[in-house]
């Protein structure tokens, strides 16, 4: 009797709640926390209703851990019965989640950088989309800037992990294509207290420029050591450092660093004719109103862009099927693949059956650290 009552209440509840369920997985603890926390914060700014449908967000933390990310994805699919998964923050964990979402036929929008997450679009990856620019896109921008500024030889120092490896590979590929010579390559660990040895070797090789393939505040260490050793060439950083903490911790030691970044980082310096300016500023104002001045970072904007894609795709999918069904998830996937000209904070998304990112060169700008702030460099 009791059980029957419980079941009928459950049925009533599930009938009454025709809401769209979105599962969010981010790394709000662990090594990728500085990326995951602004992403999590941004979820609270996403719309609660789209096209009259209520949206329910379930946020889980994967602690920057691949196994936890996969477990969370399974949990969201089986227990929460989500229609879409947004996440996760890191590349290895996002790659591992592909199998899970493809098997359950749930669309997923990753917030991680690597190109391997969405390319090539095969049977499994047809369910996977992402919003952040790829390493390849950013590395091409760096090498282009180097070539334009008469850099002939490059030194590289990067993390002793997947991040550093990825950038090393992209730098080599792009440098080979444009005739740059890599004269020294060094590694260090995120927790290292000194990089004197590596820097001595880099400086001895006398490169015209040095790329630091690191993210967050540990990226300050090599640049400080290079300055201490009197290195006079150009120093490039990756977009992994584009947050306020890097400037705060780096202080005068990171003056002059050049890096590629999503346009949202310097939204207020973009030309007023640039369509991403408005979206970027709107996001910044919304975020800073809730979390305080100067709290915004480019990482949270990837989540914002995922929300924008959803807002375009969801109404299309809702016309075809009811939320909570396999037909709806499939329709949502098709709708995501068909989104064109979505103006996001990081660029303009034109997705297609062969491109599940849809960003082009408009999604990156070169910036330089000048007087402790990001300064937009003129594009050529």
């Amino acid at each position, binding site marked *: 009797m009791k059980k029957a009552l419980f079941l009928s209440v459950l049925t009533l509840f599930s009938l009454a709640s025709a809401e769209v369920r979105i599962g969010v997985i981010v790394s709000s*603890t*662990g*090594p990728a*926390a*500085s990326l*995951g*926390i602004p992403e999590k914060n941004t979820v609270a700014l996403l719309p609660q209703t789209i096209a009259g449908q209520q949206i329910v967000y379930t946020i889980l933390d994967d602690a920057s851990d691949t196994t936890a990310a996969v477990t969370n994805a399974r949990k969201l699919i089986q227990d929460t019965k989500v229609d879409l998964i947004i996440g996760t923050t890191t590349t290895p964990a996002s790659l591992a989640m592909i199998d899970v979402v493809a098997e359950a036929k749930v669309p997923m929008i990753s917030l991680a950088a690597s190109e391997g997450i969405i390319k090539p679009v095969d049977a499994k990856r047809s369910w996977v989309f992402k919003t952040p620019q790829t390493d390849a896109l950013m590395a091409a921008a760096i090498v282009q800037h180097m070539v334009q500024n008469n850099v002939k030889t490059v030194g590289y*120092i990067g993390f*002793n992990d997947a991040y550093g490896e990825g950038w090393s590979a992209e730098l080599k590929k792009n440098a080979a294509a444009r005739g740059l010579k890599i004269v020294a390559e*060094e*590694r*260090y*660990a*995120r*927790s*290292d*207290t*000194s*990089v*004197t*040895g*590596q820097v*001595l*070797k880099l400086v001895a090789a006398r490169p015209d420029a040095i790329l630091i393939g690191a993210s*967050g*505040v*540990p990226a*300050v*260490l090599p640049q*400080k050591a290079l300055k*201490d050793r009197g290195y006079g060439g150009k120093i490039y950083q990756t977009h992994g450092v584009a*947050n306020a*903490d*890097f400037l*705060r*911790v780096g*202080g005068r030691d990171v003056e002059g660093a050049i890096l590629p970044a999503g346009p949202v980082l310097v939204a207020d310096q973009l030309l007023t004719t640039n369509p991403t300016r408005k979206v970027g500023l709107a996001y910044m104002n919304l975020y800073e109103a809730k979390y305080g001045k100067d709290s915004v970072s480019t990482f949270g904007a990837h989540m914002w862009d995922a929300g924008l894609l959803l807002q375009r795709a969801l109404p299309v999918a809702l016309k075809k099927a009811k939320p909570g069904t396999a037909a709806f998830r499939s329709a949502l996937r098709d709708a995501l693949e068909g989104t064109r000209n979505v103006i996001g904070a990081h660029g303009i998304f034109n997705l297609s059956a062969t491109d599940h990112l849809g960003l082009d060169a408009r999604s990156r700008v070169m910036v330089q650290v000048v007087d402790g702030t990001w300064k937009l460099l003129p594009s050529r």
Partner: protein
Amino acid sequence: MQIFDPSIFPILAADGLTNGAVYALLSLALVLVFAVTRVIFVPMGEFVVFGTLTLAALQLGKVPGTVTLLLILLGLAAALEAARHLRRGHVTPAALTVGGAALLGAVLWGAAHWIAPLKPPLPVQVLLTLLLVAPLGPLLYRTVFQPLQNATVLVLLIASVALHLVLTGLALVFFGPEGSRTPPFAQGTVALGQVTLTWQSLLVILVSAVLMLALYVFFERTMPGKALRATAVNRLGARLVGISPTSAGTLTFTLAALIGALGGMLIGPSVAMTYDSGFLIGLKGFVGAIIGGLVSYPLAAAGALLVGLIESFASFSLSGWKEVIVFTLILPVLLWRSVITRHAPEDEE
């Protein structure tokens, strides 16, 4: 070999010694904690992190999260202590303990909230940091390890690992995901023969050396130091002659926290410390301690210096393999140790 180039060798050696000096301090603390309480103290590196990040928070004029942790631990410790009194029917001491802890907590909270926004000069901030971080040692001992006093080494190790994870998580909550750097105590460089050293690294080496000397004097010349040594040599014997293992443990953990916080402030200016960078730093101190067999102070200190030097030279010649080289160092040492030590039957209580 390129590393023996006279223009490179001294720089690498000085760099290795600077880092090695900090590892040496940590390895001494690890040996001390293990000898006296049989705890393999995994969270040693967390004291380093708390030291740096507390000072960094004070630099920004913010009240460091360490205060919150201190108050929570103080409350827990007072509750445990009061419960112990009450179980014996002693009401007045229980009330006094709780009252005293509440008063102390209020004073600490008030002092931190009053001083932090004033941005006092660096020495005051350093002192305040030590005042905030050093009591974490004895309080953690009271709440975590003292109740396990008679447990096996394995149980103590498990508690130690758990504590490490808890402290890392709390550091994330208190200080945020991104790290901080502290200002250098001394600017500029100094020329010693052919080598130019920064004042900061010279200071690190000097302070570490002075601290080691102070520890030596403490163990050889003072009563509490001798009591600690006695406990380390033979716990039961020490107890029979009237040395309380509890007070020995409390003293040990105070010293460990103090050394950790100092170490953190010493390397803070050269590296951006994040909430989770303590583990690897602690681990390198641990390699030193292992070289000393977790019993010998001079060997542990020498081992830690060796770790620093190897790290420095490895980062020059084979940077991608640096961590592998440093941690592989443990293997031959363990092998050698297992050959030379006789295995007494386990004398666990």
